[in-house]
């Protein structure tokens, strides 16, 4: 039946079903939190799928944009009197503008040089957030005004719900919107140029594409995604520290993207799911937690080069057509 649907619609349907059905397997309300974190990470990762998977550019500094989004939501309501949701938009706009401003010179760089430049950018943002204690509360972080979702549900619908349960559905909705936008981009003319960049920048240039402009577009979009994810995390946790903008978080985001399969939105979400849920499972290994995590990362990359999802899909196809 689904065979007649275009792939992106199919992907969205699969995603919707998974989000809707997963709670049936949750043994306790704690899993709504893990689910929400998966959705939030997935949103940042979708941005990187556009940058890494579509356009073939690397970034080791995207956590910086998450930091901007997070602190926009922390500071917006306090200093500008903005609604938290307006602060989220503001954060995304600031991130996009910053990406646009620094994107041109940075994206002229290639490969590892691009990696170190984006790393530097992320470090600079993280340092400002850590050092401007007056504004950001420094390394110990600051409280964030929440969206009041649970309260809104209680008042309008008249029953009491746990914050994390409301957030699960809210985050799931946000993820679906993010995925829908990215999947549409994939099939748009812009998306096609981006993917041609991934294969060969020079070939794209020879057929007349304004390579620099399209790279910049991917960079700006991915920055906005990262920023929204950061905002959501801040609003969800109602507390934020500069750790969100750290180099380690940047690396984590890239790892999620590549581990799941950078080429597709669903692959990215699979990666985000794996790396967000894994630490919760690995707690049973106690002190061997980090050894296991490192081992799993290496094994996936050695034996599933295209990432988790594409490899599994290939395996299933092979079995289906003997």
């Amino acid at each position, binding site marked *: 039946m689904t065979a007649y649907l275009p792939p992106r619609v199919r992907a969205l349907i*699969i995603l919707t079903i*998974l989000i809707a059905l*997963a709670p049936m*397997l*949750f*043994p*306790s*309300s*704690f*899993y709504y*939190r*893990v689910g929400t*974190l998966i959705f939030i990470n997935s949103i940042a990762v979708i941005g990187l799928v556009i940058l890494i998977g579509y356009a073939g550019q690397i970034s080791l500094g995207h956590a910086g944009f998450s930091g901007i989004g997070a602190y926009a939501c922390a500071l917006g309501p306090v200093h500008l009197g903005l609604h938290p949701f307006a602060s989220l938009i503001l954060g995304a706009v600031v991130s996009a503008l910053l990406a646009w401003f620094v994107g041109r010179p940075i994206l002229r760089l290639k490969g590892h040089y691009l990696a170190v430049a984006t790393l530097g950018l992320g470090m600079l943002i993280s340092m400002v957030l*850590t*050092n401007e*204690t007056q504004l950001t509360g*420094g*390394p*110990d*972080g600051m*409280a964030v005004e929440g969206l009041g979702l649970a309260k809104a549900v209680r008042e309008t619908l008249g029953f009491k719900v746990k*914050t*994390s349960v409301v957030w699960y559905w809210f985050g799931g909705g946000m993820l679906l919107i993010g995925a829908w936008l990215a999947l549409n981009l994939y099939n748009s003319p812009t998306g096609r140029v981006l993917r041609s960049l991934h294969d060969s920048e020079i070939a794209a240039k020879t057929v007349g594409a304004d390579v620099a402009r399209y790279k910049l577009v991917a960079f700006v979009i991915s920055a906005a995604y990262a920023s929204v994810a950061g905002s959501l*995390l801040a609003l969800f*946790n*109602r*507390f*934020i*520290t500069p*750790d*969100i903008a750290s180099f380690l978080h940047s690396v984590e985001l890239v790892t999620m993207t590549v581990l799941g399969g950078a080429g597709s939105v*669903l692959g990215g979400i*699979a990666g985000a*799911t*794996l790396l967000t*849920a894994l*630490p*919760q*499972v690995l*707690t*049973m290994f106690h*002190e061997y*937690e*980090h050894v296991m995590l490192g081992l799993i990362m290496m094994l996936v990359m050695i034996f599933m080069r295209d990432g*988790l*999802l594409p490899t*599994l*899909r290939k395996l*299933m196809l092979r079995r289906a057509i003997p």
Partner: protein
Amino acid sequence: MKLKEVFKTTTLAAATAAMTTLATPAFAEILIGSTLAITGRASFLGDPEAKTLAMLVDEVNAAGGVNGEPIKLIQYDDGGDPNKARTFATRLVEDDEVVAVIGGTTSGATMAMIPIFEENEIPFISLAGAVAIIDPVKKWVFKTPHTDRMACEKIFTDMQANGISKIGMISGTGGFGKSMRGQCLDVAGNYQIEVVADETYGPSDSDMTPQLTNIKNAEGIQAVVNPGFGQGPAIVTRNYRQLGIDLPLYQSHGVASKSFIELAGDAAEGVRLPAAALLVASDLADDDPQKPVVTGYIKAYEAATGEPVSTFGGHAYDAFKMLVAAMETAGSSDPEAVRDALENTRGFVGTGGVVNMSAEDHLGLDLSAFKMLEIRDGNWTIVE
């Protein structure tokens, strides 16, 4: 995709199922949770805390448990990351269903977790330093370590007694250093002390001679304070001697472990710091109420781990003992009853001092809990 999702969720579910079966055996158990920075930048603090808790649980259970029920400790490693800490706090409350939580090695992690415990009404004893944890008082939140504000006050009192009024500060930019720097700047005026040089260093920096050179050259400077923990203070101390600065150097309670003396070597001679009685157990007067407590803890910890004791493990010791005492007083492990008993803790003798909690004070320590120590001949000496 579908398969993978399903696989993932079932693994998670299976893992939890396995854990819940372990956690809820036929007989009653008291579940206590803890999430600490066992790894990461604050593992220096979190590691002895975790080991202390594990040791004490065994000890209590061997002696028949609390109110006749054995304690089960569920311990997670948040690496000092507030987001992870909050996730584990939620897990402890909603999934493991613990009755009380000890933890939060860092102030950032603690602050991120507090709303969870307040919302779910679970007593929580933090092991982090910042004064913001208990000021303003939160109904379900307690803490055992002296605040950074108290450390500043203790240092400044000592300076005042020695006629020092112009000082330099060199602070770590980690949570601990930043927070204590802020508190010190805040209270300096109360002691007629002027900060004439204010430098910082990053948590993984390896040379602080440029900053110290500036401090050395500051006009009229009489002493230097170094808020921070980990490798920073040891390197600052060594650089201090390398540059030949012969002004008094004050470290914070963040270096209160024997390893600081080992790491800083001869350079540590003459360094002063405020610290708990734990470090000078053998020098305490025989009638000091803390003497049996601290010597007992030192003996047990060193036998259990083979590592020298630090005041950080002592914070966990105090938290656990106070919690157990509260459960015994309350006669149950019901969170509400335990919280009330915790708030009524009076005259509890711990490694950090004598604790007198109240509805207005969820720390219960005063400045007398701090001793001013000086390092002489590679050992701590009380100087007051």
